[in-house]
């Protein structure tokens, strides 16, 4: 029995700017609804909903962003007298590796039988355009719907690794800036700063390559067998760079849609827009993010 991707979907800020002026929440909502539609599923069928996005409206720290998404898409909002099953929502934060980390958690709960249908949602958008510093990720939300399938292998292995010696290369934080000119109270405000060093991409590629090779070795996977490489790290050019290092040809790289190069947590879902995980496909997912953290997963369609 394997965990399979039933559907994935994205929603971009660019596509909805004129009609919606969306925040990260609306992008997540749109992607989640679209994903359910593509799978011909209803929100009430969801047992588990995990948000893996980091940069969202107001930089909300409570409640879990996933619970807001759950309410917006109408998934089992209250307990009816007639019973049935509910939805459990929470957030995972693992930077750009969040989506794969969340898929790993859903995979575990599907395998144990604790849940039967899970969705992972991620979105990032500048919470306060013009006031944050260094935020350059394109606004996009993504969703991936997962279930167990007796007839397919689906995700067969995961590997997560951390490289704390490179923690300083990608940092983001919110702290107070004294500034009489900008604060609502006339004396300052909390500001989001994202700081990615120039050397981050090169280090992320090194870390991602070693983790991907370790996963392949543990699974006796010849990298020539990889039909599809889904590689993301919040910076443009990462997928092609990793493909070169791993010896995977360029035509087997899942490219991010136009305008989404450097997408953050939703990037793996965005990359899936241009490809099909058909039967027999062997896909290698690799995400790298701040930490440096790397998440890799092997998927057999």
């Amino acid at each position, binding site marked *: 029995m394997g965990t399979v991707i039933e559907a994935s979907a994205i929603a971009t800020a660019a596509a909805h700017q004129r009609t919606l002026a969306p925040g990260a929440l609306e992008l997540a909502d749109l992607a989640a609804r679209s994903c359910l539609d593509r799978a011909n599923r209803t929100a009430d069928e969801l047992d588990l909903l995990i948000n893996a996005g980091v940069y969202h409206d107001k930089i909300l*720290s*409570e409640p879990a962003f996933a619970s807001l998404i759950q309410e917006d898409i109408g998934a089992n909002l209250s307990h009816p007298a007639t019973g049935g099953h*509910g939805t*459990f929502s929470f957030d995972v934060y693992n930077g750009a590796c969040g989506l794969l980390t969340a898929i790993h958690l859903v995979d575990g709960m599907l395998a144990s039988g*604790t849940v039967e249908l899970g969705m992972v949602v991620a979105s990032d958008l500048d919470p306060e355009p013009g006031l944050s510093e260094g935020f350059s990720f394109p606004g996009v939300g993504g969703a991936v719907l997962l279930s167990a399938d007796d007839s397919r292998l689906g995700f067969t292995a995961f*590997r997560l690794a951390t490289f*704390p010696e490179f923690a300083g290369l990608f940092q*983001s*934080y919110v702290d107070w800036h004294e500034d009489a000119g900008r604060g609502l109270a006339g004396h300052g405000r909390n500001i989001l700063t994202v700081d990615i060093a120039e050397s981050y991409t090169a280090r992320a590629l090194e870390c991602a390559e070693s983790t991907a090779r370790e996963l392949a070795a543990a699974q006796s996977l010849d990298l020539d067998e990889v039909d599809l490489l889904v590689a993301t790290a919040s910076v443009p050019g990462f997928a092609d760079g990793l493909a070169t290092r791993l010896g995977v040809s360029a035509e087997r790289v899942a490219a991010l849609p136009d305008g989404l190069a450097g997408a953050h947590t939703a990037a793996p879902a965005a990359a899936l827009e241009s490809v099909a995980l058909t039967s027999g496909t062997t896909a290698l997912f690799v995400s790298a993010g701040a930490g440096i953290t790397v998440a890799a997963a092997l998927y057999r369609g």
Partner: protein
Amino acid sequence: MIDEDGSMDKREAPVNGSEHWMALEGGVDGSAGAGAYTSRFVGIGASVPEQRVTSDELMASTTHRTGIDLERLTGVRERRIAGEGEDSYTLALGAARDALAYANCAAEDLDVLIVSSITHYVGGLRMQLDPPLSVSLKHALGAQRALSFDISNACAGMMTGVFILNDMIRSGRIRRGMVVSGEYISQLGRNAALEVRTMMDDQLASLTLGDAGAAAILERAPEGAPGIEVAGFTTLAEHSRLCLAFPAKIGRGASMYSDARTLQEVGIEDTVPMLREALDQAGLRFDEIDYFIPHQTSARAIKKGVKEFSERMGGAPKHVVVTVDEFGNTSSTTHFVALWKYLREGRFAEQDRVLLLSIASGLEVGIVIFKVDQLVGRYGHGH
């Protein structure tokens, strides 16, 4: 299982056999939640700051003359406040090391490390978003093999971590994991004190908050040994917007705005069927619970909840644990600070059965039922 080389393979798993409202693990009905193994707590650690602030002292600092008797209203006599050099990270690290000592295991024995803090303050009131806190905690602890990540689920964060670890251990994917949280959250109270005017203020609940770190280590129990009997969670999202927290507009740190009264009312009402479901799954009555540890928001809310639950469930637990009087509401850590205190004080007997109940923003309802068993001996008590 996590292989020696660190990769995780899937194993044959049972098929989901029954339908519950909650996502449920464990129980007596032979459903999928029955799992292949039992997980158990082997170490509960905490790190509480030395510095104390009484409710009288906090209310004396308000900008406006409120006339609120906070201690009388909430039962919170005092709370611990992070001092110089303390923050979410240091509190979590201290609690993690404390838990490892009680569990008598090394950090490198951890297969998974989950950080579940709401607050992510490192180096004072600088909230870290990337990298996740779990990266630096894993490194500081020396948990080289551990799969690590952060989760966030309001005050149900640590309980959510327990739910995740319990599932991983029961299904045989891992042997041992830690969930840890460091909450430097008292600064929400300090910000609220600048703005609160009346008892109906939407920042009133912030005044009950206190700082603490807590950690719990779970591992696969030997065959036949007791441990976690049932763990369940659900999110009743029609109430998701009753409590919101984000970076403050008036100063460093954060502010929290909540409709505490409604949250309490719907929390109690919606929890009753969940309690019934979890207890049924465990084959237990409410009065068979020896220690009931609810989320510690206020003594009044706990008293009201227990009264309602007991009436509706047809019986009452033997003991109700209240620590909010001396620690305040330490958000995601409350259950484990209470467990840590009671274990150190030798309050539990080995055969005692404990029910942890989370009611948190979301609206999250989480329940964990377990037998204390060998934990007692790890704290120098019992046989």
